[in-house]
């Protein structure tokens, strides 16, 4: 369904002394139809940029993204516009994803109007249908986003997306601003919708516990690179990369220091200054991904 190959994005920074900052560096993964890939990493590691690159909200430096057999980076504006309804994104903060001056019903109608996915005379009925699908009440349609809770607004965002019948949904930390009991409601809803509509998810999160439940496959990202990719149970039960091991909070591994910015990426393995198991080699040579089990790749000299 989605194949990402060697995806790279460099931003140039600085006014006088221009230099390139690589936010995403040669990232590859694939997601089968109806499956979920959980992309995990800490703030600033480039995980949001990957989501935006796939949708071409930012233009890539190099690499390819093939969606349902279509090379997205070769598309012209008009062609891209045609395919956009099939790929949708959910953002972190539902309150700022919705127009505060637009009633919920109008907000839900907007994408189907824009892309003309539902005939005009059927729209009102479709809105009611969507409202029910995402677990809102019919009276919510005439309210404004500020009158709804964060969880309810995230349901509105989902209804807006469903109006377009997308195949791929990129969810960028969809529950990180919600309370745990509400988070559970939204995640369950997303899982039900996936079963019902056979959606493919790229689920971006910093929370490994959430990803464990949501994803079939996990990709762990550190400073623009994937350090470990594999089926969810393999990554959880048999994490090989020291960074993945530290992220699995139950192991109680304390890392030193903080993630450096993408402007000063360490030599060799990017993780080596914080790695509890580093060797001399790690500072010099960058590790290549090695297959340690079926579909389980790790970029670390220790494996």
């Amino acid at each position: 369904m989605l194949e990402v190959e060697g995806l790279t994005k460099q931003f140039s920074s600085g006014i006088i002394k221009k230099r390139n900052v690589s936010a995403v560096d040669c990232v590859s993964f694939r997601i089968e139809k109806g499956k979920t890939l959980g992309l995990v990493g800490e703030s600033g590691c480039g995980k949001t940029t990957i989501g935006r690159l796939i949708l071409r909200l930012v233009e890539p430096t190099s690499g390819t993204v093939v969606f349902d057999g279509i090379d997205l980076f070769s598309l012209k504006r008009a062609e891209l516009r045609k395919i956009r309804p099939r790929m949708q994104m959910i953002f972190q903060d539902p309150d700022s994803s919705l127009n505060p001056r637009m009633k919920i019903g109008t907000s839900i109608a907007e994408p189907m109007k824009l892309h003309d996915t539902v005939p005009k005379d059927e729209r009102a009925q479709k809105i009611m249908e969507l409202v029910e699908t995402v677990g809102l009440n019919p009276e919510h349609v005439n309210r404004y986003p500020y009158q709804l809770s964060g969880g309810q607004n995230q349901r509105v965002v989902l209804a807006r997306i469903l109006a377009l019948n997308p195949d791929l949904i990129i969810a960028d930390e969809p529950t990180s601003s919600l309370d745990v009991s509400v988070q559970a409601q939204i995640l369950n809803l997303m899982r039900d919708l996936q079963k019902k509509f056979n959606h493919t998810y790229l689920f971006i999160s910093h929370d490994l516990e959430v990803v464990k439940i949501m994803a079939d496959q996990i990709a762990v990202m550190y400073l623009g690179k994937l350090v470990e990719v594999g089926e969810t149970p393999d990554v959880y039960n048999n994490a090989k990369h020291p960074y993945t091991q530290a992220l699995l909070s139950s192991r109680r591994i304390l890392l030193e220091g903080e993630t450096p910015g993408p402007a000063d990426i360490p030599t060799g393995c990017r993780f080596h200054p914080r790695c509890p198991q580093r060797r001399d080699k790690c500072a010099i040579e960058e590790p290549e991904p090695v297959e340690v089990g079926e579909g389980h790749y790790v970029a670390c000299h220790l494996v």
Partner: protein
Amino acid sequence: MMMRISDLKTHFPTPDGIVRAVDTIDLSIRDTETFGLIGETGCGKTVLGLTIMRLLHPATTVEGEIIYKGQNLLEASEAEMRTIRGREIAIILQNPTTSLNPVMKVGEQIAEAIRLHQGLNKKDAAAKAVEMLDAVRIPSPSQRANEYPHEFSGGMKQRVMIAMGLACNPSFIIADEPTKGLDVTIKAQIVELMREMTERKAMLLITHDLSVARELCDRIALMYAGELVEYAPLKGIFESPLHPYTRGFLGSLPERGLVPIPGMSPSLIDFPDGCRFHPRCEHATEVCRREHPELVEFNAGHFVRCHHARS
């Protein structure tokens, strides 16, 4: 006993009605324990911290007693409160980015608190500030003291907040969501630091993050709609939770199966009659709709507010 709070009510008048943010709370915190106050957005947990510090708007009505080392803080004069804040009771606020002054050097901000509360001169206070930055393990502290908050990462800013809170060696600390918004690996570092720095102090840890509470707390209370619904030693809450809200809260965690609690928390203006949790409770019966349950001691030290508490 370090602090005893009884019959505490904090109400705010608003155009929409009276917000009963704290209504009613009774709890005691022992000399060196860490007491975790867990609750979701809008349950009133932050207001409880601000009530103890007396940092609320003058229009707020506060009733009840907060006895700290024998003195009722609610009756203390503003001058007395000024000697208590920082030196006796310190608060570590959430969101260090907005809590720090962006146009003042970090070292000066810490030194300001030290000069105010401990009467040190400028030079000694500055030296003490550097010492505090070192204590919270900020690398090259004397150089970092001369930098501004924007030059610090989120985790480093949180360390500064902790340094500031502990600078005057208070005996009681209120920490309000000290790990909010931090990355997983940084959160682990801050939890470790908090554990070391507060070892021989009493702390009220306000959080919605059970994993943090589990690492740091001796006892835990669950707060729902302005009141405590359950409190017990750490083990009691995690291994034998009694209140349906506590069970629901634990069950909605991803690692425990992601079973949501239906509905949402009530507004603090308009509580449901009877048990405040009954509209969301699968065990609710007639008595729950009618009568507000009292907090009762179910097992030794394990208190619960539920008509149907069972183990």
